[in-house]
C-alpha cells in the first residue's frame, strides 16, 4: 500500500509540477509547491515503507503490488529515501539560485526519475526492471527540452540514443540469458548426440560470455565509460548546472542495479570459465579509471571536471560485472549508492560555485575558499565521502570489488587506480586556498557572523502593509517621513487575514532570498554530510545492498 502511495505521490507531483511550471506565474508557484510537497512526502513514505525480506525464488502471497511483480525491499527503501532527500535539497538550492525558472524541468524530472527508480528497484522481473530503468533515463529530456534552446536538441538526441540503446541491449541480454543457461546446464558431453551436447557445451560459454559483455556494455554506455564518455561533457555543457546531480549521478543507478541483478541471477551462477570476457571488462574499467582521472585533472572547466570525476568513479561499477560472482552483488550496489550520493554533493557544489563566482574556469576560481569557507568544508567532506576511510562501507566496497575481480597484484592496482581522482579534488581545494582573483573578490561573502543589516526603504514599504508593528520594528534606519508614510499605508490597507497570510509567505521568501548565499552553502554542506553518512554506511546501507534480489520471475526459474 505504501508503495502505491509512493508511486502515486511521485507521479502526481511530477505531472502537477511539470504542468504548473510550464505555465508559469501563479500556476508555476502552485506547481512548485505541490512538487516540493510531493518530494518531501516521498521521503517520509520511503522511510516508513514496510519492506519484507523476500529473498529469491519465491513470492509470498499478498506481498507487493501487481501480483507480486513489485515488492519493496530495504535497499529500495533506503536508496529512494536518500534520492528524494537529495532531490529536495537540490531543488531548494535551484530555487534559491534561479527562482521558479530554475525549477522548470528539474522538479518534474526529479520526481519522475524517483518513480522510475522505485519501480526498477522493486521489480521482481528483470524485463520489468530494465524497462523501468530505461524509462528513468528518459527524464533527461524533460530537463533538456524544458526551454526552447537549440543546443538542447542534439543533447536530447544523444541522451535518447544512449538510453534506448542501453535499454534494448539489456532487455535482449535478459531474454537470451535463459537460452544460454539452458545450453550451459543441459549441454554436457555425456548427453550428446550427433552434434551433440559437445557442440552446445562449446557454444554455451561463448554465448554466456557475450551476454556478460552485453550487460556490461549497456551499463558502460549509461555511465559514460570510455569510449562512450564524450556524451557526458557535452551534456554538462548544455544542461543547466543544477540538473547535473540528477543527470550524472542518479539516473544511471537503476540501470546499474538491474544490470547487476541480471549478472547475479542469470549468468554468474553458471560459474563458467569466462576469463577473456572478464579481462575485457577489467581493461575497460582500467582505461576508464585512468583516462577519466587524467582528463579530470587536466580540465580547466569545472563542469567537465565534474563529469569526468563521475565517469571515473562509475568505472568501479564495471568491476561488479567483471567479478562474475554473486558475492559482488552487495559491494557493487553499495558503491552505486555511495557514488550517487557523493557525486550529487560534488555536482551541486560545482553548480553553486559557478553561480557564485560567475565562472566555471578553475584557474579563475583561485581563492574561492576564502570567500566561501562553508563550500570549502563541503568539498572536503565530499572528498572524504568519495574515497571513504578504512572500515567505511564505500571503502570496503572499493577494496572488495577489486579483490573479487582479480587476484594479487592486480587487485592492488585496481584499488590504487580508484584513488587516481584524488589529485583532482586536492587541486580544487588547493586552488581555493590561493590569493583570490578579482572575480572571486567581487563575489558575495558568506556571512558566518551575522551583522546588523540596514533595511532598505523599499523593504519597509513592502512589509508595512502587513501591519504597522513591522514597520516599527524594521525602520530604525529609515527617514521619519518614509516611516510615517508606511504607517499611513498600513492603516489604509487594513491588513485582512488573507493578505496577511500571503505576505507571511512573501516575507519568508524574501528572507530566504536575502540569505541565499549562506543557505546555498549550508545546503551543499548538508548534501556532503549525507554523502559522508552514506559512505560510512549509516542505516546499514551495506546490509541492505547485500540482501538477495527480490527478482524471482525470470525465465531462468521457469
Amino acid at each position, binding site marked *: 500500500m505504501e508503495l502505491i502511495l509512493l508511486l502515486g505521490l511521485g507521479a502526481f507531483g511530477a505531472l502537477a509540477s511539470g504542468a504548473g511550471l510550464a505555465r508559469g506565474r501563479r500556476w508555476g508557484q502552485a506547481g512548485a509547491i505541490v512538487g516540493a510537497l510531493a518530494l518531501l512526502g516521498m521521503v517520509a513514505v520511503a522511510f516508513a515503507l514496510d519492506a519484507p525480506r523476500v529473498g529469491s525464488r519465491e513470492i509470498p502471497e499478498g506481498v507487493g503490488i501487481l501480483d507480486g*511483480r513489485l515488492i519493496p525491499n530495504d535497499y529500495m527503501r533506503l536508496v529512494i529515501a536518500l534520492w528524494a532527500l537529495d532531490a529536495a535539497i537540490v531543488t531548494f538550492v*535551484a530555487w534559491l*539560485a534561479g*527562482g521558479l525558472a*530554475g525549477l*522548470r524541468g*528539474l522538479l518534474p524530472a526529479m520526481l519522475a526519475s524517483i518513480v522510475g527508480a522505485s*519501480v526498477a528497484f522493486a521489480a521482481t*522481473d528483470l*524485463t*520489468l526492471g530494465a*524497462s523501468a530503468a*530505461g524509462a528513468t533515463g*528518459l527524464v533527461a*529530456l524533460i530537463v533538456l*527540452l*524544458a*526551454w*526552447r*534552446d*537549440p*543546443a538542447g*536538441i*542534439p543533447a*536530447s*538526441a544523444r541522451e*535518447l*540514443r544512449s538510453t*534506448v*540503446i542501453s*535499454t*534494448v541491449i539489456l532487455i*535482449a541480454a535478459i*531474454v*537470451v540469458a*535463459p*537460452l544460454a543457461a539452458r*545450453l550451459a546446464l*543441459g*549441454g554436457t558431453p555425456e*548427453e550428446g*548426440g550427433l552434434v551433440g551436447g559437445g557442440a*552446445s557445451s562449446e557454444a554455451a560459454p561463448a554465448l554466456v560470455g557475450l551476454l556478460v559483455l552485453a550487460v556490461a556494455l549497456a551499463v558502460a554506455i549509461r555511465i559514460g565509460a570510455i569510449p562512450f564518455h564524450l556524451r557526458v561533457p557535452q551534456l554538462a*555543457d*548544455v544542461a*543547466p548546472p*543544477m540538473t547535473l546531480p540528477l543527470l550524472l549521478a542518479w539516473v544511471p543507478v537503476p540501470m546499474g542495479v538491474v544490470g547487476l541483478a541480471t549478472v547475479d541471477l542469470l549468468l554468474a551462477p553458471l560459474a563458467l570459465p569466462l576469463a577473456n570476457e572478464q579481462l575485457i571488462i577489467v581493461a575497460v574499467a582500467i582505461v576508464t579509471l585512468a583516462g577519466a582521472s587524467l582528463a579530470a585533472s587536466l*580540465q*580547466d*572547466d*569545472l563542469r*567537465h571536471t565534474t563529469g569526468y570525476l563521475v565517469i571515473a568513479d562509475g568505472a568501479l561499477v564495471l568491476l561488479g560485472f567483471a567479478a562474475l560472482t554473486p558475492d559482488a552483488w552487495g559491494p557493487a550496489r553499495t558503491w552505486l549508492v555511495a557514488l550517487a550520493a557523493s557525486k550529487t554533493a560534488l555536482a551541486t557544489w560545482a*553548480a553553486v560555485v*559557478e553561480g*557564485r563566482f560567475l565562472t*566555471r*574556469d*578553475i584557474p579563475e576560481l583561485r581563492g574561492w575558499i576564502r570567500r566561501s569557507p562553508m563550500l570549502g568544508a563541503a568539498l572536503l567532506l565530499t572528498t572524504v565521502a568519495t574515497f571513504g576511510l578504512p572500515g567505511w562501507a564505500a571503502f570496503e566496497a572499493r577494496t572488495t570489488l577489486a579483490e573479487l575481480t582479480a587476484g594479487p597484484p592486480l587487485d592492488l592496482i585496481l584499488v590504487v587506480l580508484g584513488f587516481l581522482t584524488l589529485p583532482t579534488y586536492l587541486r580544487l581545494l588547493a586552488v581555493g586556498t590561493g590569493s583570490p582573483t578579482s572575480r572571486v573578490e567581487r563575489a558575495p561573502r558568506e556571512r558566518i557572523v551575522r551583522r546588523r543589516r540596514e533595511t532598505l526603504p523599499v523593504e519597509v514599504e513592502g512589509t508595512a502593509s502587513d501591519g504597522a508593528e513591522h514597520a516599527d520594528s524594521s525602520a530604525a534606519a529609515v527617514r521619519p517621513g518614509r516611516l510615517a508614510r508606511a504607517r499611513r499605508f498600513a492603516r489604509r490597507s487594513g491588513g485582512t487575514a488573507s493578505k496577511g497570510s500571503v505576505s507571511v509567505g512573501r516575507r519568508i521568501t524574501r528572507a530566504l532570498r536575502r540569505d541565499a548565499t549562506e543557505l546555498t552553502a549550508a545546503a551543499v554542506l548538508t548534501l556532503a554530510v549525507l554523502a559522508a553518512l552514506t559512505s560510512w554506511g549509516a542505516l546499514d546501507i551495506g546490509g541492505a545492498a547485500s540482501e538477495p534480489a527480490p527478482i524471482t520471475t525470470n*525465465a531462468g526459474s*521457469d
Partner: protein
Amino acid sequence: MTPALVILAVIVTAAAVVATSAREPRLAALGMVVTIVGAAYVTEPLPGIVALAARLAGSVLAGYLVWVALRGAPPPTVGWQVGWPGAAAVAIAAFAIGWLASGTIATAVAQASGSGPSVGAAAALEAGSPVPRAAFGAALALFALAAAPVLVGRDVLRLGLGLLILLAAAGLLRNVMSVGTDGPVELALAVLTALIGAAVAAVVGRSLAVHGDLDLRVTARGDGAVRGRAAEDGRLRPWPGMYGPYGPRRRALPPAPGAHRDLRRPDRPAPVRPEPPSTPGGAGGYGAGWPGTR
C-alpha cells in the same frame, strides 16, 4: 493462425524498410507504426487479451505522438542513402540469416535438453514452429535496418524511428525466446514504448519549432573550457536563470577595460525629413525656400 503470423512478420519487416528508407516523413512514421504495432503479435502462443491490449495501446500511442509531431507537412528528409532497394536487400539478407540461424539454435537447444518435453526458454522454437523462426528473422532484420539511423543518423526523425524499431526488435527477440507473457511485464513494455514515442515526438517537435526542419545539428562546442565558453557566449540561451546568476550573460567574461577600445566612427545621423516652414520670412522661414536647398 501460424501462416498469418509468419506473414505478419514479413509485413513488419517490410514496414521497417519503409520507415528507414522513405524520404517523406509521414510515410516513414507510418512504416514505424506498422512495425511496432505488428511486432508485438508475432509470437506463439499469443499472450492474454490484457497483454495484447496493453502492447497495442502503447504502440499506437507512441506512433500517434510521432505522427502528431509531424503535422504541418515537414520537408522531406534525406532518408537512407541506399534507398529502398538497398534497405530491402539488407532486410531480406538479415531475415534469411535469422530464419536459418533459428533452426540451428532450435537443434542445439533440443540436443541440450535431451528427449524431454520442450519447456522454458525457446520452447516454441524447439518445437519446430515457424512463427519463432519468422520472429527471429524479423528481429535480426529490424536490428540491421535500425543500426544505420541509430548510429550515424543525421536527422532527428530517422534517429527516433530507428530507436523505436530497435525496441520492436527487442520485443520480437523476447517473443522468440518465449520468456513469458506476463501482464505487468507487457504493460511495462507498452509504457516504455509509449514513453520513447513521446520522447521522439518531443525532440522532433522541438526541432521543427526551432529550426523548421529535422536535421540534427551538432553544435560546435569544444571539449576545452575556453572553447566551450566562447561558443556559449555567441548567443543567448533561455535557460532557467538566464537573467540570474547562471545565465550566460553573467557567465561571460566582462570586457577588459581599455583592452579593446571602440575606435569605430559613430554612425552618421539619420537624415531628418524636412518640414515646411510655418512662419514667413527669416532664415529658414516661409518664402526663403526649402531648408537645405540653398
